[in-house]
């Protein structure tokens, strides 16, 4: 067991302190200290052999995952440096320049690569700025639902019985609702704001995490190192946090990555229906809704924001698929 835990290419989630700690605790104090030290103080591995470096190199060897990673990084950079990258002010209206086709050059010789919208605003700049809402909703909502789902999954899987029953029925209730419909109903009541959108999506997306983590916990809690911790008299919460959680983290990370794509689509759908972050803040879904009106005269208004969503979601999905295949091929999410 210890051998596999220390093998540099073992499942990275297993290379965690619990087992090493266990080895130290279990070893009788009179045992040869040299043996213990050689386990606890394994020489630091060179940079190229660190787990995450190895993991990353295996990941980018898959071409589709590499493509996904590049897309995700590009969107992330666009969001962070939007004001620097965007060629125009995304809010600057110019009625004289309205509905100009992609590649249009204005009087000062400045080019609008993706054209302008019905208020003469530059579409490329609005798409670049729109990534900010998409990513901030995506990251925050995933964080909320991820933490919530992790906690529920841990408790549900570890304690089983009545607690598990209650949480799993709650999960069934949550899944019974068509997600978008519940979200628009609640946001319709609370009012559309960035905070409300993040909270509503975050609080109602915990089920996938809880189910996956719970499944992992059910098998982890039967393993030797957990049994040993129980035998040593560790408290439940300590076992959960120190021994179970680190080992359930890998599948959680895969689910979180793939769920991010879903959240971004939901945010856009809400904005499309008029229940997203309100104008004039540019959102991809809101731009699409604007463009829908001008479909027969100016196709570019609705086409490009949709492509932005498509490429972002595709990138995240490919990266997530690659992450899953690298970390945990058994996982079906």
């Amino acid at each position, binding site marked *: 067991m210890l051998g596999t835990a220390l093998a540099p290419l073992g499942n990275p989630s297993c290379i965690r302190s619990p087992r090493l700690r266990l080895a130290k605790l279990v070893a009788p104090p009179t045992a040869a200290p040299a043996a213990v030290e050689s386990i606890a103080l394994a020489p630091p591995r060179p940079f190229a052999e660190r787990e995450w470096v190895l993991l990353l190199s295996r990941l980018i060897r898959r071409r589709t995952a590499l493509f996904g990673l590049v897309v995700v990084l590009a969107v992330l950079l666009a969001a962070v440096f939007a004001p620097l990258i965007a060629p125009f002010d995304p809010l600057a209206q110019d009625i004289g320049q309205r509905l100009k086709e992609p590649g249009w050059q204005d009087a000062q010789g400045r080019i609008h690569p993706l054209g302008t919208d019905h208020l003469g605003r530059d579409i490329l700049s609005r798409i670049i700025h729109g990534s900010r809402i998409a990513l901030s909703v995506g990251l925050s909502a995933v964080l909320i639902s991820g933490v919530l789902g992790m906690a529920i999954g841990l408790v549900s899987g570890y304690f089983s019985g009545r607690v598990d029953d209650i949480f799993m029925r709650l999960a069934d209730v949550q899944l019974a609702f068509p997600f978008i419909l519940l979200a*628009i109903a609640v946001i319709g009541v609370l009012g559309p704001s960035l905070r409300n959108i993040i909270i509503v999506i975050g609080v109602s997306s915990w089920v996938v995490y809880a189910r996956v983590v719970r499944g992992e916990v059910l098998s982890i809690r039967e393993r030797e190192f957990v049994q040993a911790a129980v035998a040593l008299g560790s408290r439940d919460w300590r076992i959960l946090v120190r021994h179970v959680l680190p080992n359930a983290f890998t599948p959680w990370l895969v689910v979180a990555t793939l769920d991010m794509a879903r959240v971004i689509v939901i945010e856009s759908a809400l904005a499309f229906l008029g229940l997203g972050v309100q104008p004039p803040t540019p959102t991809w879904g809101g731009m699409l809704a604007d463009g829908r009106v001008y479909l027969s005269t100016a196709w570019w208004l609705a086409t490009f924001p949709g492509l932005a969503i498509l490429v972002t979601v595709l990138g995240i999905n490919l990266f997530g698929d690659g992450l899953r295949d690298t970390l945990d091929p058994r996982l079906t999410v």
Partner: protein
Amino acid sequence: MKAYLIRRLWQSILVLLGVSVVVFLILHLTGDPAALLLPPDATAEDLAKLREALGFNDPVVVQYLRFLRGAVQGNFGESLRHGEPAMTLVAERLPATFQLAGAGLAIALALGIPAGIISAVRRNKPVDYIATVIALLGQAMPTFWLGIMLILIFSVRLGWFPSSGRGDLEHLVLPAITLGLFTTARITRLTRSGMLEVLGQDYIRTARAKGVSEPPVVWKHALRNASIPIVTIVGIELGTLLGGSVITETIFAWPGVGRLSVQAIFNRDYPVVQAAVFLLASTFVIVNFLVDIGYTYLDPRIRFR
């Protein structure tokens, strides 16, 4: 078997109760349901009158039980905008939504299963790559954008199909494709991976070894065993389809429950919203209950669990 059915039925009833609690709470999220039901410029006197009339001054538990009693009888109150019972309005729109969701599901099954099988049989051949790329795109494409692009190409440019409304089969084509594509992609990928797994099993090798020709091996021996996860996902995908219908119906002006609820939310017509959410969620629970029962016939192992 009987014990399993009873347990499953009991679970479904519990879930429906949970659904009713959530639907009840929608109206109480802000703490003052009367303010939601009246226009923003309503006077304090109007508010007090409505609170009294609808019993909003009673304890929440009493209000919930009253709501539950109404819900069981299909009574969600009157639509504030149309003056008709909310339930009637929603029920009138249900067939349109079921037709759309059914058509979407039919497309998904009719395209997804064969595509997945061919992909698996011709693994790593050009056909497989094409199907995989289409499935990946289908999963990444937002419903509303796909719908708008279909309208742009097939209605605005080519004029082949109408872009809105419900009528004959022509009206159904674009909305059904829009709604069904995501599920098609899911089923394609699921069928492909399921078939790949089954095709590597010993009984397939045995069938081939005893001289069964390739088509029956694939379509009979392999597909029957690969179909179990597909049946499971059909029940779950129904939720995706009903949720997706909200967007698809809005884009194509399809007169179903989804479009009605979006309009009701903007009109602050909450009885209609509650009735719609409750009915769609109940549909999902009931269909999944039926799927689970059907499942026990496909996979006898489950009866003894």
